[in-house]
């Protein structure tokens, strides 16, 4: 279709503010999906997404809309991932758009993550259409939040659309606004092909499906193409559009949005942000903004049953086919056996991967405490990266330790301003800015070490603000910090799974928490077991599990030796299942319990 009649938009919204419902309504009102075929949240594909109410993988769908001016417009709706860990993917989705729908719950107002994405959209120069959803709810306060949105984006409160995606109220007017206000694409139809990959998913039958927007030129089926960043050259087996079901097309024109299937089997070969061009044009300038996915959070993942290690490896291999951001390498731990050190975009990403491993591959796993990636400058002048606390060199060899910082944005009711500041300050936060969205709500910007928020910061924030505050963060570079590694020793033997890197001021608290926890978790043995926390050779905390003194059956009643033998065989089996740390027998559950992060957790 000619560019004048094309519109490409994305919806930015907080979880549960109604993005999927609005998408459903747009599909229905444009006749893209028949009323009878409509099922809730049409565009969310994975079970996991539906259960969590979030969208992990974006989809793009084409709608043909007959506007009041009588013309047919092609509206491409590009879905965006809805969580902090996928900020880069959001930015690529936005780069494929010309306008955004800023969708906010009329009973809750804008949340931190939406605000971040809004700033991204404004920075990208996109037309922003502000919308308050759920105005049919009794708790809706459309006037109040219209004011808030108007102030944020610099328009009048009357310019804020008030809709109910559920009932469809206000949605026809919204469709008109999309046509009127979102500009058409500005690409060069006659230039060589350049298409932006804004999403990439793996399908067991078709291989990788790359979603792209044609920025310049056109892409044809059976054409020889190249991915500029990865250098992969393939034939475009099939190109098509989602309407919303996949529909093959002979070609996609400038400005159009669609999919590409090319026999590629791993998403890391067709990455989000890459530029697709024709093979003979492979030296073309790539579209701006491509970035390698960079893992921010690391954790060791181990099978509870050591025999499951090969299964875990196969499972990770399979997951990586459709998760370009997941990285892993084998590691072994004296405490936990063989497993993998995995890198994730963030905590949610980690949680999703772990949940999928357990659910889809039926594995039972133990994860070590998450850590961030550190850069260490050695006294020799060499600089190394450390993703596992046990790899941290001896303090005497360390010149400086750098840790990743993030810009944290919290949006909270003003009642909790003090609470939020206290929490952030306690996590080595540095206040950057405060901005009142309205007399009742404020956005607070902090710079903080990522390591401080990966434990239980989000849970703490939620519980201390009764669930009202929302959080977003984005990477803000590396900075030197006074960090030390705290080791935990059982009977003088370090337990690698419990080593962690913390700020010097918090080392004592961590040590004390862990030794106290372990004293309760480690069963009494035949001898006293000292539990120590140490920085290098300096002991900072100590507890003792006293030797047990009685473990004997009183008698063998009436000659029932069978019962006694079974009892001892069970006890023997119990011992066999324990992990041996030096001479200390530690039940598996002690590791799981000790590594559990909770409110009296290791980071508090």
């Amino acid at each position, binding site marked *: 279709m000619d560019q004048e009649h094309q519109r490409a938009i994305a919806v930015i919204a907080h979880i549960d503010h109604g993005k999927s419902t609005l998408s459903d309504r747009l599909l229905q009102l444009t006749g893209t999906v028949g009323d009878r075929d409509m099922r809730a949240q049409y565009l969310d594909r994975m079970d996991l997404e539906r259960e969590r109410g979030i969208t992990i993988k974006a989809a793009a769908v084409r709608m043909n809309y007959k506007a009041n001016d009588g013309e047919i417009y092609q509206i491409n709706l590009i879905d965006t991932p809805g969580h902090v860990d996928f900020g880069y993917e959001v930015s690529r989705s936005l780069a494929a758009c010309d306008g955004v729908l800023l969708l906010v719950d009329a009973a809750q107002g804008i949340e931190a993550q939406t605000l971040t994405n809004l700033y991204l959209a404004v920075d990208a120069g996109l037309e922003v259409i502000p919308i308050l959803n759920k105005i049919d709810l009794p708790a809706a306060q459309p006037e109040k939040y219209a004011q808030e949105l108007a102030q944020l984006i610099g328009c009048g409160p009357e310019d804020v659309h008030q809709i109910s995606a559920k009932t469809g109220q206000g949605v026809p007017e919204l469709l008109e606004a999309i046509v009127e206000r979102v500009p058409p694409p500005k690409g060069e139809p006659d230039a060589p092909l350049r298409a932006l990959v804004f999403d990439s998913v793996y399908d067991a039958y078709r291989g990788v499906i790359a979603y792209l927007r044609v920025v310049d030129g056109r892409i044809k089926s059976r054409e020889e193409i190249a991915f500029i960043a990865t250098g992969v050259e393939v034939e475009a087996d099939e190109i098509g559009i989602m309407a919303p079901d996949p529909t093959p097309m002979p070609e996609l024109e400038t400005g159009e949005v669609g999919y590409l299937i090319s026999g590629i089997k791993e998403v890391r070969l067709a990455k989000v942000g890459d530029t697709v061009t024709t093979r003979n044009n492979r030296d073309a300038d790539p579209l701006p903004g491509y970035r390698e996915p960079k893992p921010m959070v690391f954790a060791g993942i181990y099978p509870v049953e050591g025999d499951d290690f090969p299964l875990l490896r196969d499972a990770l291999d399979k997951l990586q086919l459709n998760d370009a951001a997941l990285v892993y390498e084998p590691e072994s731990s004296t405490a936990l056996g063989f497993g993998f050190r995995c890198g994730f975009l963030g905590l949610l990403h980690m949680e999703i991967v772990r949940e999928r491993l357990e659910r889809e591959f039926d594995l039972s796993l133990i994860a070590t405490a998450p850590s961030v990636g550190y850069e260490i400058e050695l006294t020799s002048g060499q600089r190394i990266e450390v993703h596992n606390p046990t790899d941290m060199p001896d303090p005497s060899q360390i010149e400086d330790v750098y840790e990743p910082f993030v810009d944290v944005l919290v949006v909270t009711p003003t009642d909790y301003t003090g609470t939020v500041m206290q929490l952030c300050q306690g996590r080595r936060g540095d206040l950057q800015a405060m901005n009142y969205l309205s007399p009742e709500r404020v956005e607070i910007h902090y710079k903080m070490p990522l390591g401080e928020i990966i434990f239980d910061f989000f849970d703490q924030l939620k519980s201390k603000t009764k669930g009202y505050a929302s959080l977003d963060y984005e990477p803000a570079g590396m900075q030197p910090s006074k960090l030390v590694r705290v080791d935990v020793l059982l009977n003088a033997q370090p337990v690698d799974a419990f080593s962690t890197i913390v700020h010097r001021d918090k080392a004592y608290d961590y040590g004390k928490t862990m030794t106290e926890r372990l004293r309760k978790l480690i069963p009494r043995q*035949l*001898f006293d077991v000292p539990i120590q926390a140490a920085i290098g050779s300096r002991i900072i905390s100590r507890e003792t599990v006293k030797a*047990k*003194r*009685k*473990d*004997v*059956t*009183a*008698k*063998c*009643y*009436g*000659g*029932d*030796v*069978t019962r*006694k*033998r079974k*009892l*001892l*065989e069970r*006890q*023997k089996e119990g*011992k066999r299942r324990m992990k041996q740390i030096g001479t200390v027998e530690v039940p598996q559950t002690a590791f799981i319990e000790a590594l559990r992060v909770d409110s009296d957790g290791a980071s508090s």
Partner: protein
Amino acid sequence: MTVAFAPSSSRSGEWSAEPGFGVYVHIPFCRHRCHYCDFNTYEGLDALFAPYVDALVTDIERWDGEPSPATSVFFGGGTPTLLAPEQLGRVLAAVTERTGIVPEAEITIEVNPETVDETTFTALLEAGFNRFSIGVQSLAPHVLEGLGRTHSAGRALEALAAARRAGASDLNADLIYGSPWERPGDWARSLEGVIDAAADHVSAYALTLEEGTPLHTLVATGRVPDVDGDVQADRHAVADGYLRAAGFERYETSNWAQPGRASRHNVLYWSGGNYAGFGAGAHAHVDGRRWWSERLPRDFISAVEQGVTTEAGFERLDDSQRGPEALMLGLRLKSGVDLSALERSYGEGFLAEREPVIERLVGAGLLERSGSWLRLAEQSTMLANDIICRLL
């Protein structure tokens, strides 16, 4: 039998190298079940006393095992002395008839203090019993009450004295220590009491909370404090101190005896000996085959009446299982086990396989070794399970 055991002497003659053959008879009746008890015993089955005795006698008569003269017989319960001495005598006579009994055999019966007086003891001696195991448990009234015993401390001491008066030469006092109600002084006084009453054998058992017992429920629901293993370890040491001072010697985890008074039947169990078992839920063992009878008295009786076997289950152990079992049992004895004898009986490599673990435990002072004999160190007595399960 190849498993050696603590050399000791019998009440009359020498019995050293061979543990002999035992007979266990179970009497599954009680007037009142104690709060801690999970034994196979029942209240209110008085009507079954006579049919049960008949069934026992018939079952013994029908036993088709290889007869071997019994070196020890043990009537346990329940409360055997709920039955009349004549009834008990009939059963013992049936045993004598079926298996034979060696002249110097140890013939024990468990006695609950509240069920006996001097004439009972006289009658039981007459019937052929020569050793009484008296259920004293404690001499502290509040402990007896907590345990659910229905006799007084005085009655228990009286039973010991009555047995002596009747002419009994072998007397065991059963004691329980480490109950939640027991104060340190209570335990010392109980030990002194049974020593003064001239018991020549003391079985002192740490109170164990068995699932399904009223005491277990009371503790689980927080109405009674839990037993404390550390306290029990202390009490065991106190018992050893008192009894040793009075001339007793500990020969098994929970058993002390004056020289020559170790219970032969008890030692038989721990040395892997052979024994027949008669009565509801009774266990038996011959050469690696272990079996047990119908648990419920009614089922036991009706099996006998219908002329079918009373056996309810069995297991047959091969040498690879018998070796570890012999270790498990033998290490309970103060004398320990003869490893080379075990290896001869249960196969090459039995010792080699365990050598590294044994070495480590000996090094840690938890096991002791002299020649081919292995035993628990004195300080490990109360840790036997933890140590033994490493050797299985």
